[in-house]
């Protein structure tokens, strides 16, 4: 059983330092599954292109999910695709994160009403960490979403949160 699976009941300085250290590693090196779905994928590509440069945040696309930390659901998830998305997500090693990018991935977007073949929100199949709104979101918005995710990771802790 690895350290990450363990939950400590009490907080102390060592744990919080270790926490910070591990979290820092995780948040500054989020490798992304090289995977795009629809129009948002183009903006995702633009984000990794020279103007916005995902690499600044340590995000690089990896071809196989086995070596990835974050999956950016960029675009419309259809029913035909949903099972595949789920499997891709499952095949990533833990700890892993999900960014849902764009209206479609958030809740079906413009297709929520008549889209007989569109999954209304990717959170119906996989747990989403950050929702980035927009159709498509500007690259900056995606970067902001990523920073929000980093913020979230930074606040993760091995200490079991006391049930208040």
């Amino acid at each position, binding site marked *: 059983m690895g350290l990450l699976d363990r939950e400590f009941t009490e907080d102390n300085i060592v744990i919080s330092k270790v926490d910070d250290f591990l979290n820092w590693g995780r948040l500054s090196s989020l490798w992304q599954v090289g995977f795009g779905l629809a129009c948002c994928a183009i903006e995702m590509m633009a984000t990794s292109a020279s103007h916005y440069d995902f690499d600044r945040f340590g995000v690089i696309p990896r071809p196989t999910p086995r070596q990835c930390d974050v999956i950016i659901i960029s675009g419309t998830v259809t029913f035909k695709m949903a099972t595949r998305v789920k499997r891709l997500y499952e095949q990533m090693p833990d700890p892993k994160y999900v960014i849902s990018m764009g209206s479609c991935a*958030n809740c079906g977007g413009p297709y929520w009403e008549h889209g007989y073949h569109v999954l209304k929100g990717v959170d119906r199949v996989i747990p989403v960490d950050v929702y980035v709104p927009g*159709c498509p979101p500007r690259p900056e*918005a995606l970067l*902001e979403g990523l920073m929000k995710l980093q913020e979230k990771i930074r606040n993760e802790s091995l200490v079991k949160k006391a049930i208040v």
Partner: protein
Amino acid sequence: MQEYFRNIWQGLSTVLTGMKITFKHLFVPAVTIQYPDVKVPLPERVRNRLYVNMDDCIGCDQCARVCPVNCITIETVKSVPGEDLGKTSNGKKKALWVTQFEIDIAKCCYCQLCVFPCPTECIYMTDVYEFSELERENLNFNFVTLSKEEILQKKENYAKLEAEKAAQKAAAAKPAVANPEQKPTDN
């Protein structure tokens, strides 16, 4: 044989040409915008998050009707006579209490169609794009300025008025006029 050496030559020379170009670019300053530190000014027509200036909204439902995605939900209540709702900035008189004005930004496709028909130009797109959320519910924006109690009160007021009217009508034995403003919400 000639072909053989030409291939070698072409291979080497084109590779070197390519390498020259990439080497040159090694020293070309990067075009990257360092986003969180530097933000490029957006052009004025930029289309991002919607905003509704509720002071100006007359609750005419135009925007909701034109939206292809149906992500605007408006519910209005007629004012009772004597209530002053104020005027919009371009001089129209408001006659309806807007008791619900929700835009589900998560669904919106940023097409700007809702902006054009608005008679008071109170719904418009801003340049705010940094509003990612950890929960999807937070993306459902509510623009109503009235508090919950006020809404309830307005509804009551109107119901009372209705009742009175109905009573009057019943008294006058006239056919009831359907309320044109009471639009059923569609989601």
